[in-house]
């Protein structure tokens, strides 16, 4: 069962291993909980009269699903992995471990309080991904700051000379996100249409400056590590970093095309949405070229297939986003379920798959405990087939919805026309949820399950320690 490459174990400090394991088990809990909610939502399309108590109603659960997957699952999984990567690439242990523990506590507390308040109908407004009330957002922000500080201090104390490219990306994410959070939380300048402008900015920066940067950082570490070969081009990685930083913040208004936001402001967002092709294609090319002619290694690895799918969806989902931004196509696709397909292509196909790839790549090396080969295979195929079916179903269904509106049919005709595709989404979602249960079992095997061997950690020699 165990292939040679998987038996490698990092020489990580036991407390760093405990830290990494705790982040991943927390994240896994949130993945299970929030996608169970997502699954319930998807069944409410064909069965709207099902689970109709206020606490299970669509409008409240939807925000729990989106905020929970973002700030419970993806943020905790990526932060935990990023902290571990920072320690590995710096050749030392995590510098201030209590910062990281406190951060994990903040993340969990924010996700719990956020879930409860949203379910009681207490929110900041139905503004996507910032529905949590201000004090919950501040708890989360504290979590980001603490994790960020733990990473920056670790990298500052590194024994390696250069800052490894993956840390560029993670540190970037941890620097941008507090700035973004503060912009989003301060209410003073957010009245009426002004709030719409801030919302467009916030919504896209949350995905672009936080999840994207962390996921790319993890890919830049895991890929060379798993392939045992350096990243194809350091320069392309740096180019991707700066172009992402400069282009991403400008594209937010493409969520409000044809709205009363100033027309030139929308046009600017569309132009920069095209500009986004530069970092996306540079990143994808860099990853693809790093993997070139290593098909056999990919097939034998637990983690690499997830990263391959993640990179493929990074390319497809982001390129789709550029295409969606054109005004001619927005007239059909905007407001339809097509955009829900896009969100899952990116946040699921890209971000969630990279998180899985990172976890399967690094967690067994940290704990010395392997996932089950069969379970990993099932997880991979259920999730891949599930999300692909999800995206295809909603891309077709959304297009039909948009065409029904353009044809001038009564509104309910668009609901009837999209209905079969919403059913297909619920079926695909069930497959994805099944994959998450299997993943949770694997996380158990990699962390809490009794280990096959005793801890063999030895403190590194003073001075120039070997990189794990």
């Amino acid at each position, binding site marked *: 069962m165990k292939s040679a490459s998987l038996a490698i174990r990092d020489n990580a400090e036991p407390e760093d291993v405990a830290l990494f394991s705790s982040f991943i088990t927390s994240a896994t809990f949130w993945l299970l909980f929030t996608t169970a909610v997502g699954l319930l939502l998807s069944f*409410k399309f064909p069965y*709207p*009269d099902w689970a*109709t108590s*206020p606490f299970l*109603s*669509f*409008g*409240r659960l939807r*925000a729990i699903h989106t905020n929970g997957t973002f700030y419970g699952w993806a943020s905790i999984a990526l932060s935990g992995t990023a902290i571990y990567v920072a320690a590995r690439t710096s050749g030392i242990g995590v510098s201030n471990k209590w910062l990281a523990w406190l951060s994990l506590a903040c993340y969990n507390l924010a996700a719990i309080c956020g879930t409860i308040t949203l379910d009681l*109908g207490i*929110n900041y*407004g*139905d*503004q*996507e991904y910032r529905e949590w009330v201000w004090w919950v957002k501040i708890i989360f922000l504290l979590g980001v700051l603490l994790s960020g500080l733990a990473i*920056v201090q670790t*990298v*500052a104390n590194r024994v390696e*000379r*250069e*800052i490894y490219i993956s840390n560029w990306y993670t*540190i970037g994410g941890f*620097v941008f996100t507090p*700035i973004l959070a503060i*912009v989003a939380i301060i209410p003073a*300048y*957010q*009245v*009426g*249409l*002004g*709030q*719409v*402008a*801030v919302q467009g*900015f916030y919504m896209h*920066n949350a995905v672009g*400056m936080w999840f994207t940067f962390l996921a790319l950082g993890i890919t830049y570490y895991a890929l060379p590590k798993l392939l045992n070969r350096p990243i194809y081009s*350091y320069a392309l990685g*740096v180019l991707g970093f700066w172009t992402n*930083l*400069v282009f991403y*913040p*400008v594209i*937010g208004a493409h*969520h409000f095309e*044809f*709205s*009363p*936001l100033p027309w030139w402001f929308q046009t600017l967002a569309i132009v920069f949405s095209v500009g986004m092709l530069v970092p996306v294609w540079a990143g994808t090319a860099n990853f693809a070229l790093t993997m070139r002619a290593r098909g056999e290694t990919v097939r034998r690895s637990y983690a690499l297939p997830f990263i391959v799918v993640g990179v493929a969806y990074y390319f497809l989902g982001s390129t789709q986003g550029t295409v969606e931004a054109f005004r001619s196509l927005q*007239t059909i696709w905007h*407001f339809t379920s097509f*955009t829900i397909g896009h969100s899952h292509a990116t946040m699921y196909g890209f971000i969630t798959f990279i998180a899985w790839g990172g976890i399967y790549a690094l967690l067994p090396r940290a704990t010395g405990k392997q996932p089950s080969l069969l379970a990993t295979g099932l997880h991979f195929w259920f999730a891949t087939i599930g999300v692909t079916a999800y995206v295809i179903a909603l891309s077709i269904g959304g297009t039909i919805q948009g065409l029904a*509106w353009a044809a*001038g049919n009564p*509104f*309910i005709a668009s609901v*009837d026309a999209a*209905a079969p595709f919403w059913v297909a989404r619920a079926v695909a979602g069930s497959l994805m949820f099944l994959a998450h249960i299997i993943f949770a079992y694997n996380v158990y095997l990699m962390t809490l399950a009794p280990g096959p061997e005793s801890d063999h950690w030895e403190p590194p020699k003073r001075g120039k320690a070997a990189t794990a």
Partner: protein
Amino acid sequence: MNRGMNNVWSLVLVSAIIYGALAILMGVVPGMVLSRTPPTVGSQPYTAQEERGRDIYVSEGCEYCHTQNVRPLKQDEVFGRPSTAGDYAYDTPELLGDHRNGPDLTNIGGRQPSKIWQYIHLWEPRSVVHGSIMPRYTWLFAVKPKADPGDEVVPIPSGFGPTKGVVVTTTQSRDLVSYLESLKQVSLTKRTGK
């Protein structure tokens, strides 16, 4: 290139400055400027009751299925005239929305003026629109064995009501429907000048 960035604190500082500047330029400044948009001539602030209804709309997440943003496109003509900047002056939190699982509601007060229809529809959307996927909001109403004087009884179509008793409105449903009624676009040509 990377030599200059080998100090982690300079990486932190440089990226914070660049992103901070972009955040001000693309988030804060547009927010400040557009927050000052004057209201469309003739539009009125919400009454206290409408405001309470609007809060229910926000906490129940109606925006995840309903936009309040009529685009200058042919397919949006059924919902009213194109929305203009001044239409949102009284709308905080904003409710433009990104999803149209249901119709746009910018002008629903004008398009569907019947209060009774709104009550029945909120109690059970499928009792009036077969095939609707909208949730029912039964908890905004009260079920009583018998209506008391002053109660507003909702005439639920048979088969959709409670097996026993009558459905009456509550403050919550009255507030929400008064908000929906208030959603009427003011005409851009007709001035309500004195």
